[in-house]
């Protein structure tokens, strides 16, 4: 297994750093999947409803000048590594004004991801900073749990309002209740609702717009104004929103009720088509 990559562009480095910071906020440990044209950060939250709960995809050529990898074997040309996300984000933090950043897989006493930064400095000589981040290689038999979640056709999918606004609303709601109800319809309306014995607070967002649905036919007869709702844990939603440092060009939320009656919510944030982060939250309806 081999991996070497290099970033020289300042803007790319900045973007990569911000994504890494976001991952660090969402999860303590994450999986890094390296394939010939993509880099993925995967969080597998096994405590929740099984399956992947966060999936981030980066097109390698949008970030790296040089990218070489050799997977586990010819048929399985991928590398899956587990690391502490904070270690990576902290290492990247030192690369603020770097001339170049190199990442490679090394084995110094134990397997590491070595991040090597060449910093500009006042004098002629440049400073070289190296971080060896310990990693664990994930064996092939566990790869199946870490695949990209198949996004089934949603019942409702809607563009989210400005995430900053949404975050400040949800933060205030957190003080009143632990559970939040998200309602959305195909008419561009989204409601965030909390209900307790004493009080019920709803924030309405209008004219948000809906992304085009994959299969028009099944939803033709649906009432556009019919609200699909799902109950979720406010803290998990906040965790997702807090991690959003990258200004997205598109943020959307998809709601799906599958045949078993289980509801899931999928949030997807895309930036300039270069990176995509999807986060899945399961329904936690409380029956009172």
């Amino acid at each position, binding site marked *: 297994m081999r991996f070497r990559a290099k970033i020289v562009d300042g803007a790319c480095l900045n973007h990569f750093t911000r994504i890494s910071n976001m991952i660090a906020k969402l999860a303590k440990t994450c999986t890094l999947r390296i394939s010939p044209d993509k880099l993925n950060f995967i969080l597998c939250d096994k405590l929740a409803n099984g399956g992947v709960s966060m999936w981030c995809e980066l097109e390698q050529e949008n970030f790296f000048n040089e990218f070489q990898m050799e997977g586990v074997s010819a048929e399985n040309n991928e590398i899956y590594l587990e690391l*502490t996300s904070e*270690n990576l984000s*902290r*290492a990247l*933090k*030192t690369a603020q004004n770097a001339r170049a950043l190199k990442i490679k897989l090394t084995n*110094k*006493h*134990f397997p*590491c991801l070595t991040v090597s930064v060449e910093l500009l*400095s*006042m*004098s*002629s*000589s*440049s*400073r*070289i*900073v*190296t*971080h*060896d*981040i*310990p990693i664990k290689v994930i064996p092939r038999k566990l790869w199946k749990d870490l695949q990209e979640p198949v996004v089934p056709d949603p019942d409702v999918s809607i563009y989210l309002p400005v995430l900053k606004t949404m975050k400040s609303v949800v933060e205030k709601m957190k003080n009143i209740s632990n559970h939040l109800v998200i309602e959305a319809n195909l008419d561009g309306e989204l409601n965030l609702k909390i209900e307790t014995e004493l009080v019920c607070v709803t924030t309405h967002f209008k004219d948000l717009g809906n992304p085009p649905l994959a299969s028009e036919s099944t939803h033709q007869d649906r009432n556009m104004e019919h609200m699909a709702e799902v109950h979720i844990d406010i803290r998990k939603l906040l965790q997702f929103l807090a991690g959003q440092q990258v200004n997205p060009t598109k943020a959307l939320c998809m709601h799906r009720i599958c045949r078993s009656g289980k509801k899931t919510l999928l949030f997807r944030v895309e930036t300039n088509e270069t990176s995509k982060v999807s986060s899945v939250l399961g329904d936690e309806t409380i029956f009172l």
Partner: protein
Amino acid sequence: MLKCVMSGSQVKVFGKAVQALSRISDELWLDPSKKGLALRCVNSSRSAYGCVLFSPVFFQHYQWSALVKMSENELDTTLNLKCKLGMKSILPIFRCLNSLERNIEKCKIFTRSDKCKVVIQFFYRHGIKRTHNICFQESQPLQVIFDKNVCTNTLMIQPRLLADAIVLFTSSQEEVTLAVTPLNFCLKSSNEESMDLSNAVYSEMFVGSDEFDFFQIGMDTEITFCFKELKGILTFSEATHAPISIYFDFPGKPLALSIDDMLVEANFILATLADESSRASSPQSLCLSQKRKRSDLIKKKAGKNITGQALECISRKAAPRRLYPKETLTNISAVENCGSPAMKRANGDISEVSENSVSNTEEVPGSLCLRKFSCMFFGAVSSDQQEHFNHPFDSLARASDSEEDMNNGSFSIF
């Protein structure tokens, strides 16, 4: 006994000094003398010492007078102010330094030894006055005897560089290693830790020698020391805008960080990890050829049951120091001649730790994991120099006013 007056901007520097020292210890000695007002502290494991000396010209007004008393053998002994303050009492007073700098017209600090109090007064505009009365404990300040000028390696850097380096290391890492060669400088995570915990990130930063204001390396060295105190020193250096000088030698010998800008002189002495194998060439390190051990030199010197090897080590370290003449004259001010209570107090400390030291030195040969720092020489300011001169292993104080040292020049005492 002590009375000094400062302006707003001077208070800021003073406050920063207190904050820097608070990272080392929970107690602070206020030690005024003819040389100026010194703030001293030492940490509980005796592996870090800080001293900030404000010269009389730093203050708007500085007045110090010592009490002189006649002692039995007709030697005038002057009593210095044996004032120890709790950091918890003094640190909150110097909070919000930026607003203090802006709003106060002047600050007065004076002592009332009859009531064992230090009074700090802030005078604001419109006649507003804030007064703090802090009780102090009578306690003899410790001084470290460390000769900076004989260190093989000397560096002078801008605080910015050190600040950039500090960012690399997580707060969970306790120790960092400084490795130098005549051409470059490297700060890296201590090897000890990253081998034990496979989850720790190992970081290193190489800096070229041309980034330093002064770069003189006598021999390739790698020293390891505690990282926590470094941050405190940095905040202080940013307040004074002066470069930091680093003096060090072989592993095991303390490292000194100095900031000197004419008005204020700050010295932070940190113990370094004694290394056994890699420094075989250096004679002094041979004596520490046992497993890495943290030895409190005070403990060692006092305990009668110290191992022969340790004894050798002390004597070897002691010898070169004596021979080196010092340019900086230690003005044997009256402050340093104290009555025997000082020594007794120091002895008191030693005897209570000597049991520990015995058990420590016995454990050491067996255990690999006991890591110890070797410590620095501590001098309690003491007057009875003659008797201590004959028994160097009993004494903490280097004979600073005995005849021999007067002739050779004396050590710089911080």
